[in-house]
C-alpha cells in the first residue's frame, strides 16, 4: 500500500478545470519533487491534498495509506498525517505563534489519543526547534506570521512540520525567497525530518534545493498533468533547457 496514491485526478476551481488527469504515487521513505511552469497547477495539487475548500474533485481518486482522503476535512487530514507548507503562509494577528503551535500540537496529540504536553516542556521544545532554524525565539511571541519576513514565514512552516511530524510533507515553494544560508537551514530541517517512515513532496522552481534534499523522483507538472518523470538529472535538464521540450 502506497503512502499517497493519486489517480487520474481532475479538479476544478471556480468552475475552471485546473488538474486534468494527474497521477502520482509516493511511497514511504521517498522524496519527490514537482517542477513546472507558473500556473500549471502545482499549488492546486497541494491544496487539494490538504483539503482546501473551493477545490472540487470532479473525477479521479486520492488515497492516503489506502484511505480515501476526499471526504475528510482539513484537520482530519492533518490528523491522518498530511502536512502542507503553504506557498503563502497566512497572517493571524492577535494569536501568538506559540499559542498557535500549542493549539496545533494539542489537537494533533488529542487525535492520536495522547495527552497535551505541559506548557513548559512544550515551549522548551519549540524554542529548541526555532533555534535549529535560526529563528529568533522572540518571533514565538508575535502574532502568527505577523510582520514576518518572507524567509521567516517559510522557516516557520518548516518548524511546524518538524513539530507535527507528519507522514507526508508537501512543501509548496518553501525554498522561494530564501537567502543562501536560509536555504541551507531549511534543507537541513527537511533532512532532519525525513526518514524511512515518511515522505516529502517538494514543489519547487529551482534545482538548487535538490542539491541539498536529494529527490528519488522528479516530475514535470504542466497543463494540469504530469508530463514527464525521472531522477534528479531531470531537474538539471529543466534548469538548463526550460520546459519547452516537455510541453511541446
Amino acid at each position, binding site marked *: 500500500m502506497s503512502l499517497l496514491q493519486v489517480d487520474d485526478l481532475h479538479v476544478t476551481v471556480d468552475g475552471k478545470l485546473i488538474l486534468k488527469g494527474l497521477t502520482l504515487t509516493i511511497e514511504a521513505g521517498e522524496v519527490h519533487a514537482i517542477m513546472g511552469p507558473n500556473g500549471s497547477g502545482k499549488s492546486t495539487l497541494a491544496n487539494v491534498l*490538504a*483539503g*482546501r*475548500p473551493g477545490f472540487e474533485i470532479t473525477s479521479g481518486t486520492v488515497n492516503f495509506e489506502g484511505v480515501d482522503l476526499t471526504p475528510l*476535512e*482539513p*484537520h482530519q*487530514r*492533518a*490528523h491522518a498525517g498530511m*502536512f*502542507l507548507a*503553504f506557498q503563502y*503562509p*497566512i497572517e*493571524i*494577528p*492577535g*494569536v501568538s505563534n506559540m*499559542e*498557535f503551535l500549542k*493549539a*496545533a500540537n494539542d*489537537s*494533533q496529540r488529542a*487525535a492520536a489519543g495522547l495527552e497535551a504536553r505541559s506548557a513548559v516542556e512544550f515551549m522548551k521544545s519549540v524554542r529548541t526547534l526555532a533555534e535549529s532554524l535560526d529563528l529568533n525565539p522572540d518571533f514565538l511571541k508575535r*502574532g*502568527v506570521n505577523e510582520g514576518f519576513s518572507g524567509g521567516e514565514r517559510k522557516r516557520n512552516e518548516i518548524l*511546524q512540520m518538524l513539530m*507535527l511530524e507528519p507522514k507526508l510533507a508537501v512543501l509548496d515553494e518553501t525554498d522561494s525567497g530564501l537567502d543562501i544560508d536560509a536555504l541551507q537551514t531549511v534543507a537541513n530541517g527537511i533532512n532532519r525530518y525525513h526518514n524511512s517512515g515518511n515522505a516529502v513532496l517538494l514543489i519547487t522552481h529551482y534545482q538548487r534545493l535538490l542539491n541539498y534534499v536529494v529527490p528519488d523522483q522528479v516530475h514535470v507538472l504542466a497543463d494540469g498533468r504530469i508530463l514527464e518523470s525521472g531522477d534528479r538529472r531531470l531537474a538539471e535538464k529543466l534548469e538548463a533547457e526550460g520546459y519547452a521540450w516537455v510541453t511541446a
Partner: protein
Amino acid sequence: MGDGVTALDRLSSDVPDWLDRDAWARIKLNLEGPGAREHWKHSSLAKTLEALVGTERSVDEDLGELPNGVETLRFSEADSATLEVIRQRLAHRMDWSRYPLADVVNLIAQDGWMIRVRRSLDTPLIIDAPSGINSPVIIEIAPGAQVELHEVSHATGVQARLINIVIGRDAKLVHARHDFVSDCEHWQLLRVTLDDNASYQLHSHVVGARLRRIDCQILLEGNGATAELTGTGITNDGTHLDQRHVVEHIGRATTSRNKLHNIAKGKSRCTFNGRIHIHAGASGTDADLQNKNLALHESSEINTKPELEIYDDDVKCAHGATVGQLDEHALFYLGSRGIEPSLAKRLLCIGFITECIDGPLADELRGELLRHLDS
C-alpha cells in the same frame, strides 16, 4: 418620545446650584429635537430615559482610599467661585442636543464630585461605579502630572455615569475601563478635554447588556494634544451595545487614534459610531479611526458608521470600518495544522480582540473577555 417626556414628571424640579437654571427647559427641548433622534438611532432614547427617571441616585458611592495628591470636594460644598468653575466645566463645548440625558442625570443626582489630581500618582485612581444614578464627576489633572485611572463596575440594574475629565498642559492620563456585567441598563457620557501637549489613552473593554450606550467626546483643544482610544466590545445573544466616539480636533497639530474591534454573537446588536470633527484652524491634525467588526451569526446585527467633518485643509485623516465574518483562509490554515473548526474559530476571535487589548488591566481583561466569548 411622547411617553418619555411624561416620564419627566417623575423628575425632581429642584435645579441644584451647580447646574444652569435652564436645565429643565433644555431637557424638554433636546429630547424632542432632531439631534437626539439622529444620535439615538440604534438605542431607544425613550427606554433609556424611562429607565433613568425610574432610578434613584446611587447611595453607596464611595471613592475609597484615594492616592496621595488627590483632593475631593462635593459640588454641594463648593464655594461660589468653585460653583462657577463647575458650571463652566459641565457646559464647556457641551452639545446638549446630542446628550439630552446628561441633564436628566444631573437632576436625579443633585450632587457631584470634584476630584483634583495635583501631581503624578504612584497608584491608580479608581472609580468603582455602583448601581443607580452616579453623581457626575469632574476630574482635573494638574499640568505635567502622570496619572492612571481605572474605571470599573460590577453593578447590575440601571446605571448612569457622567465623567468629565480635564487634562492639564503636558499631563498624561491612561484610562482603563471595563464593563462586564450584562444584567444591566447602562448609559454613560465620558468627556475629556486636553490642554497643550496633554495626552490621553483610553483602553475600554465592554460587553453588551440589556442596554448599554457609551458616549465619548474628546476635545483636543491644546496644541499638540494626543488621544489614543482602543477598545473591544462583545455582544452575546440578547444583548445590546451602542458606542459613540466624537473626537474634536481644535488646537494645532493634534493627533487622534481610534481602534475598536467588536464581535457580535447570536441575536445581538452592536453599534459603533465614530466621528472626527476637525475644526477650522486645527492645522496639522493627524486623525485615524479604524473599526472592525465580526458578525458570528446570521442574526448578529452590526452598525458602523465613520463620520468626518473637516474644516481645515492642512490635515491628515484616515478612517476605515469593516463588517465581516471569520477569514476562510485563516480557518483553512489552522485546520491544516490539525486544529478542529470550533477551536480554529475561537482562536481567530481571540486574535481579533487581542489586537485591541492593551493597557494596565490587559491581563485581567483577557480572561474576562474570553469568558464572554465562550458563553
